[in-house]
């Protein structure tokens, strides 16, 4: 190792250090050189802009019906045609991105927050705390996600926030499991003992040291779960327990369109492709982040080692 040779002989021998690049910068550089990652990142960015500025971008209001122009094929007026009520498909796909992204991001943030806190606490304190929390998580896990979400959404009446909560709650267990396992391995490391020796309390160690050490794992898992959350929302909408029918969502559009799959396939294919592309983009981002943020690979990245 050049670092040890540089430093060991005497304190003064290494007054001139070679130029060093911070690991964070190396990681960013590596990300910028990955074409697939950049493509997906740009796609997600565009998607966010479209969702935020939907009223200005969409050519028609999402619920404006044109009964004379029902089930119209793609044309210059309606790029992706219209549905059974003569609503513009493109506008509805654009508006649908709002719900999909909102559900995807908020549900994932919610489940990650709760799951990480529960998992960290369970893993750190161990014993009965762990037993109680993790067995509860196991119980939650035995219920299929869709079924759990269905139950919660049905209980709460079904609105946008209910869908978010339902999906968020059903996605907590994997985070708790991940963090619990991570915490158990991290809390046995030497630096935790050393921190306790410096007078750090349990909460400080958990929030300041355990979570940051596991953060790259959680972050990667989150990006993968975004795809899952969007799909779950679609599934709920498809089953009719999602957001109110007046709100366009990709899932409900697929559900509405499948009856015309042979005559007007674009009604289902357009939102379906939107779901697929979004899920794919988030998954690819997660995949790349895992490669770059894994602490074991920290500092070993060189720009020469890039691949797209």
């Amino acid at each position, binding site marked *: 190792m050049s670092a040890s040779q540089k430093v060991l002989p005497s304190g003064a021998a290494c*007054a001139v*250090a070679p130029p*060093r690049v911070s690991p964070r910068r190396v990681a960013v550089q590596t990300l910028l050189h990955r074409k697939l990652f950049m493509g997906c990142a740009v796609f997600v960015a565009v998607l966010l802009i479209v969702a935020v500025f939907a009223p200005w971008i969409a050519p028609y209001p999402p619920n404006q019906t044109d009964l004379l122009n029902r089930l119209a094929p793609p044309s210059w007026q309606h790029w992706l045609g219209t549905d059974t009520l003569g609503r513009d498909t493109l506008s509805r796909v654009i508006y649908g991105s709002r719900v999909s992204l909102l559900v995807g991001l908020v549900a994932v943030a919610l489940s990650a927050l709760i799951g990480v806190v529960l998992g960290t606490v369970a893993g750190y304190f161990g014993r009965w705390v762990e037993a109680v929390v993790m067995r509860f998580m196991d119980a939650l896990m035995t219920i299929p996600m869709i079924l759990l979400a269905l139950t919660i959404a049905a209980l709460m009446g079904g609105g946008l926030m209910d869908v978010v909560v339902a999906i968020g709650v059903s996605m907590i267990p994997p985070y708790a499991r991940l963090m619990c396992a991570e915490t158990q391995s991290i809390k046995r490391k030497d630096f935790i003992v*050393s921190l306790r020796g410096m007078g750090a309390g349990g909460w400080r160690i958990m929030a300041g*040291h355990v979570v940051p050490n596991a953060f790259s794992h959680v972050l990667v898992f989150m990006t993968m779960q975004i795809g899952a959350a969007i799909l779950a929302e679609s599934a709920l909408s498809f089953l009719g327990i999602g957001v109110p029918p007046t709100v366009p969502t990709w899932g409900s559009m697929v559900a509405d369109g499948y009856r015309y799959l042979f005559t007007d396939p674009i009604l289902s294919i357009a939102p379906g492709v939107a779901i697929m592309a979004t899920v794919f983009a988030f998954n690819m981002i997660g995949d790349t982040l895992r490669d770059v943020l894994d602490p074991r690979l920290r500092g070993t990245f060189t720009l020469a080692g890039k691949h797209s």
Partner: protein
Amino acid sequence: MSALLEVRDLQVEFGTPNGAVRAVDGVSYTLAEHEIVGLVGESGCGKSASQLAIMQLIQTPPGRIAGGEVLFEGHDLLKYAKNGPEMRAVRGGRIAMIFQEPMTSLNPVLTIGQQLAEATRTHLGLSKREAQDKAVELLRLVGTPSPETRVNDYPHQFSGGMCQRVMIAMGLSCDPRVLIADEPTTALDVTTQAQVLRLMRELVERAGASLVIVTHNLGVVARYVHRISVMYAGRVVESGTTKDLFAHPRHPYTLGLLQSVPRLDEHQGSRLIPIDGLPPNLIDMPGTCAFLPRCSHAIDRCREEPWPELANVGEGHSVRCYAQVAGGSA
């Protein structure tokens, strides 16, 4: 010199499937102000466990502090709640500890500066800015070149020796009264060991603190410590000033340790004398002297009577042995 830290009859037990193991069995010692004390013994003799117990850092379960007192600044540290605010204020603030694995004793995902700042912000209540400045100053103090840039580095960018210096800097960051160094040089190159020890002595003297060095290597610490306590099987078997102990070791174990360390002033070709056998199994301790099976100086009394208590044999020199190697042949 008054006693700053006084450990009395400290006992630490570890639960195992085969019954409780008494890893530390009645260890007592005192540490005076500005004093440097060495705690020497082979692996598993309870030297690290006794130090962790002082800070109440023994993991329970399986560990348990079974008895004793640790008097520090007029308080018994063992009476504090294990993770209560008083104990946390002592840890790092009044008594700091340096651990043996410098490379793994630092959090890999935080910068050196953040970790140094954390201690000073907690104990001294510094602001973020002040703590950052203090971190740079501390790094300079322990001889880190270009500390202004190194403070933003991560631990993996430091060598073992540099990490150990960071640990020392962290230990000293809150001006503790006592610094406990647990095998501070074990993971380091021989070339760096002396540097680190010298640095530690210098800084401790300058800060007016006291230092406990826990080690298995008598030779390494000999030049730096004022007094040495030799531990065997959870007990202190001999304790005295460094000079006295090296010149006139009384316990056969101490003698054995000294003879097994190579010396430069010996004739070429003279052989090192190892201590035969293995340390006793702590689960199944004999009532007699624990060193008896390995002892070549044993007399009949050793086999018949229980392990004796520490007895004074000279000015500040005490030993736990019936046979007592007479006056120094090391």
